[in-house]
């Protein structure tokens, strides 16, 4: 049969017709997906891409101080720049002030060295007149920092249109005249914040697993009527607004809230415990919010596991606990993997709950990104932090895919 099929291939016309039909089919399915694709590109891929691009773009200084940027391009950095650069600076500052672009350039420079912003603005107020004599000493007279090569070094770096500096700053590194260096310990924020984000996410994931696995097991093994009733308790919170659920914890966790009142009444505590605006609040709130994902992911897998496996194991002589551990749990690994992956990935980017229940100095990365965007207007740094967050998420995804397989991802 096989030899016959080889000797007698399908006629060319037949193959072409088949391919044409397949192409038409593919085009039609593409047409169905087109609105979604357009939507995704417009509101998801494009903004995210733009934000990520911001992490390497640096237009402010080059735009505000074009002549200085050009003058510094050839500067070696060994000594102070020549006096034309000083003159260019005076002219650029004057022009930028007029155009209103000076403030954003000053803000950008401030990200290199605190105080740079006030230096620029102060200089702008008392700008030396090139006609009145050599400009360089006049700048130094306004502020001695103009006489330091390091100051000019920062301006040089800041005037590059493509910069690695935000990406470096987002992991507490800085490019100085003598290469890369770590920020002084008191200024390092982000490495610790990434570590903290991982730790909080990991803890939340573990708590969700410990709390959610038995619930999923119960849901999957109870008779359908009871199981459906119990499922309501999982689903209804899932449908409830995130904000409502998070603020509900205020009521419970306040110093004079329900939990503290109960503890005090039971005589377990004298003073109210600090349960919110700290790590405890974040863990409690996030675990609560993310628990349904863990439960549903495990439930979906467990529901497909016939009880006859455990029965078979017991009939073969295994104690029920051994049967559970050696026969049931391994079959739920896809559920554990999916739940862990979902909860962890959602947790590392989580914002509202830690923002509302967390404490100062204990922020997660998402809070720091928001802070850079809303308060500091430092979109470059916000973009850089987002780049790392996206990379971390992708790394988690690849680890998950390697061990569990994304095709096994299912929910409900």
């Amino acid at each position, binding site marked *: 049969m096989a030899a016959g099929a080889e000797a007698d291939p399908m006629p060319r016309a037949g193959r072409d017709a088949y391919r044409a039909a397949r192409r038409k089919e593919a085009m039609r399915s593409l047409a169905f997906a087109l609105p979604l694709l357009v939507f995704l590109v417009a509101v998801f891929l494009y903004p995210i891409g733009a934000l990520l691009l911001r992490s390497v773009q640096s237009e402010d200084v080059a735009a505000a101080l074009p002549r200085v940027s050009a003058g510094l391009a050839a500067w070696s950095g060994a000594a102070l720049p020549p006096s034309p650069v000083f003159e260019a600076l005076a002219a650029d500052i004057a022009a930028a002030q007029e155009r209103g672009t000076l403030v954003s350039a000053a803000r950008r420079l401030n990200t290199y060295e605190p105080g740079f912003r006030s230096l620029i603005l102060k200089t702008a107020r008392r700008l030396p007149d090139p006609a009145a004599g050599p400009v360089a000493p006049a700048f130094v007279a306004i502020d001695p920092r103009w006489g330091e090569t390091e100051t000019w070094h920062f301006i040089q770096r800041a005037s590059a249109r493509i910069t690695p500096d935000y990406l470096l700053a987002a992991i507490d590194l800085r490019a100085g005249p003598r290469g890369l260096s770590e920020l002084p310990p008191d200024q390092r924020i982000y490495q610790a914040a990434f570590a903290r984000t991982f730790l909080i996410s990991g803890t939340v994931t573990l708590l969700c697993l410990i709390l959610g696995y038995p619930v999923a097991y119960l849901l999957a093994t109870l008779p359908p009527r009871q199981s459906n009733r119990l499922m309501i308790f999982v689903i209804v919170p899932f449908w409830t607004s995130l904000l409502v659920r998070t603020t509900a914890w205020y009521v419970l966790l306040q110093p004079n809230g329900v939990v503290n009142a109960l503890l005090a009444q039971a005589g377990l505590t004298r003073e109210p415990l600090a349960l919110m605006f700290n790590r405890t609040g974040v863990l409690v709130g996030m675990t609560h919010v993310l628990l349904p994902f863990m439960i549903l992911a495990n439930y979906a897998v467990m529901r497909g596991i016939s009880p006859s496996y455990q029965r*078979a194991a*017991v*009939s*073969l*002589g*295994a104690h029920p606990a051994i*049967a559970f551990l*050696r026969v049931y749990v391994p*079959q739920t690994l896809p559920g554990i993997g999916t739940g862990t992956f979902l909860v962890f990935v959602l947790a590392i980017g989580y914002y509202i709950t830690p923002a509302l229940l967390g404490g100062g100095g204990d922020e997660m990365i998402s809070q720091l990104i928001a802070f850079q965007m809303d308060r500091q207007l430092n979109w470059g740094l916000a973009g850089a932090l987002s780049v790392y967050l996206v990379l971390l998420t992708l790394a988690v995804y690849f680890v998950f895919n390697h061990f569990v397989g994304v095709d096994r991802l299912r929910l409900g």
Partner: protein
Amino acid sequence: MAASGASEPFVTFSRIRKTYDGESYVIRDLNLEIAEGEFLSLLGPSGSGKTTTLMLLAGFESPSGGTITLNGRTLNELPPHKRDIGMVFQNYALFPHMTVAENIAFPLSVRGVAKAEQRERVARALDMIELGRLGGRKPSQLSGGQQQRVALARALVFEPRLVLMDEPLGALDKALRETMQYEIKRLHRRLGVTIVYVTHDQGEALTMSDRVAVFEGGAIQQIASPTSLYEDPENAFVADFIGENNGLAGQVVGFDDGYAVLTLPGGRTFKGRAGGTLKPGDAAVLALRPERVTVDPGDGEAQNRLSGTVEEIIYCGDHRRIHLATGQAGHFVIKVPNTQRTILPANGEPVDVSWRYDDCKIVDARSA
């Protein structure tokens, strides 16, 4: 391997009752003795309580009343994992995350058998089921028949003296089912284990078993060897359920020369061997196998006679089936073997048939 040993029975059910909901009994008053080394089938329609009986013995359900003993020991309080009963489930329940060898080693490993001995016994078990080289595969990479063999090997490898099988061949196609029936019988003979085998396929039960227990409505209707079940049904349910049967329903009017006399509602009487507990006045059924009837008016010697009209003749290769319409006896089927040189009547023709008193049995119309 016969059922009736003088010694203590291996398994006994005495006065076992089971209810799941507290309202109706799924098993009512079950009494059963199984001899060591016996192959006993539980045969009955779906929902008749076969699986429940097996689960009671395995320990996954506990009886609502009565006691079960195994080898002289009362089982009621013994948890299932300590019963040492091998079990084969309908869907095999092979552990999907373990290889074939790991599946078979599982009962040994939970018993703390040393690794080296495990390997050796698994290898022997794989040889026994002729899957020697497939030990490293996952169950999902095996065909249905191969999975079935692995399930068998896993249930036998720890050398239980009792093995329970719940419709183990139900998921296989016909040809494979026959091979596996033979295979299971071979293992049974070779190992001498006691097997309790649940099935709803009477052919399977009759060909494989030493004895068959016919279940209906949570009770055993009859427990006997395949031959007795077929030749000597004790009630109308068993007569109808096992093989093909013509049932003529009427009333026992008396006994004559060792035969029971049955009168149909229309007044015709027939004689046949009498079922054990019948008394005059009882509702009864004359049970008659289609192949015992001859197309012949008979010579009147200890024979029942009946006349009717041919409705249809069906050619079945080795025999013909003739459907008759008879007045009082209703619809009637006879089987004529292809060897008989009888000249058969044509459709719509009247015909006289007869059968010997000894070839039919008059049994209780009620089930147990």
